[in-house]
């Protein structure tokens, strides 16, 4: 093991691993192709990597001569899970990628002039549309195929869930938007599990767009239900007597701040959760690379242990929860604006009946947690 390599690893925080690797012979190990395919971008992908340890030694000698740029110390700790965009960037400009690519504080938003998050979400949405078109094409009533059954099961479950929250009438009206939102966010969150794809929701731009869309939809629904005057009346805290009328300006200010905060909090929550998941995956991918680097005593091994796979179930679970939370909060924001007319009559009885009023009270109680 060259002193240079051990120094790099120590810088990367893997002193123990470097010591572990010192006993290893430096010649015989042959590198196979990357376990994940996409891990090859660590090497800049454009340059030809030597396949055997002997060649690697030659490459090191070249690097010492200054013929080749040697990767920096934290080369093995990627800041995002490698995907097609990082690969394209690495192929297009390896030297720049080595300097900025693996040290970039945030996942890349652009490759050249192409907004990659937008590209990925459009592709994923297209896949979603194609899937549902394909699944529902037979429209079989008597003997539906597997695909159609699967799609109908998901849509039916989603419909039942939304109707449970919002009641029959409202649920039916808002089901198309909320279900689309749920599927879109879920697919976007889960994209990080597919090698070569990245999760567009790990970018604040995507989630802010989603949050703004959602809040505009909610406001249009509100204006259709209670009208502009009703909306202003609600913003003023639904005043009934003199004291509450005096408090109205204060309420308007508070509610207006709330209106601004809603889309921001919606989008920040989704963004933070997804970015956190991606960072955990990237960190464990990096640890896998460091372990192989120490074992093979090679600063840039072709193969990394796929340690991040143990987080896949967690990512699936959290992605589903985040998609659900986004859709449910949108539904609750719609419900919040409607309970005020019927609120007074349902005020007295303690056990809320399982009717429209009861549901609205439940939604209102839940929404009360928001403020």
């Amino acid at each position: 093991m060259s002193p240079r390599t051990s120094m790099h690893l120590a810088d990367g925080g893997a002193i123990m691993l470097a010591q572990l690797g010192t006993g290893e012979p430096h010649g015989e190990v042959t590198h196979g192709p990357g376990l994940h395919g996409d891990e090859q971008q660590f090497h800049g992908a454009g340059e030809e990597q030597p396949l055997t340890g002997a060649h690697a030694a030659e490459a090191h000698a070249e690097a010492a001569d200054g013929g080749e740029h040697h990767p920096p110390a934290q080369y093995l700790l990627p800041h995002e899970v490698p995907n097609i965009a990082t690969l394209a960037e690495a192929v297009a400009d390896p030297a720049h990628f080595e300097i900025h690519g693996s040290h970039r504080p945030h996942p890349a938003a652009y490759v050249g002039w192409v907004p990659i998050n937008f590209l990925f979400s459009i592709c994923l949405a297209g896949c979603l549309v194609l899937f549902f078109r394909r699944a529902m094409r037979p429209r079989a009533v008597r003997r539906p195929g597997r695909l159609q059954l699967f799609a109908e099961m998901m849509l039916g479950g989603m419909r039942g869930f939304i109707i449970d929250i919002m009641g029959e009438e409202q649920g039916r009206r808002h089901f198309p938007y909320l279900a689309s939102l749920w599927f879109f966010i879920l697919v976007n969150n889960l994209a990080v599990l597919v090698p070569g794809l990245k999760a567009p929701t790990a970018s604040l731009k995507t989630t802010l767009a989603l949050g703004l869309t959602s809040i505009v939809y909610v406001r249009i629904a509100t204006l259709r239900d209670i009208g502009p005057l009703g909306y202003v009346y609600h913003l003023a805290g639904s005043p009934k007597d003199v004291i509450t009328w005096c408090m109205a300006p204060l309420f308007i200010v508070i509610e207006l701040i709330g209106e601004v905060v809603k889309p921001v909090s919606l989008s920040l929550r989704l963004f933070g959760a997804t970015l956190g998941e991606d960072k955990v995956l990237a960190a464990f991918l990096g640890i896998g690379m460091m372990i192989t680097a120490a074992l093979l005593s090679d600063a840039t091994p072709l193969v990394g242990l796929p340690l991040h796979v143990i987080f896949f179930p967690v990512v699936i679970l959290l992605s589903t929860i985040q998609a659900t939370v986004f859709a449910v909060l949108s539904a609750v924001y719609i419900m919040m604006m409607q309970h005020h007319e019927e609120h007074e009559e349902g005020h007295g009885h303690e056990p809320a009946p399982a009717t429209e009023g009861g549901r609205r009270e439940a939604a209102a109680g839940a929404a009360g947690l928001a403020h």
Partner: protein
Amino acid sequence: MENFVPASLILFAYHLSVAVAAIGSGFGLGRAVGSAMEAMGRQPEASGKIQLAMIIGCAFIEMLTIYALISIFFVGGVIGTGMEG
């Protein structure tokens, strides 16, 4: 002006702040989910409504940790690069 705090200490503080936020929201989530489970056990027919309120409440509690995480990502740059400073 040189920075007065060692870089390793700053790095430690970044991670500690998320840990503190996680402890807080862990307690909050524990209370919320525990009470919801109790309520569901006592009144299984109302479990749908309780579950809805629980999910929303959990979202708001969990948001605090996520905010801490985001501020780490934005303010502190990235886990790992703090070593250079």
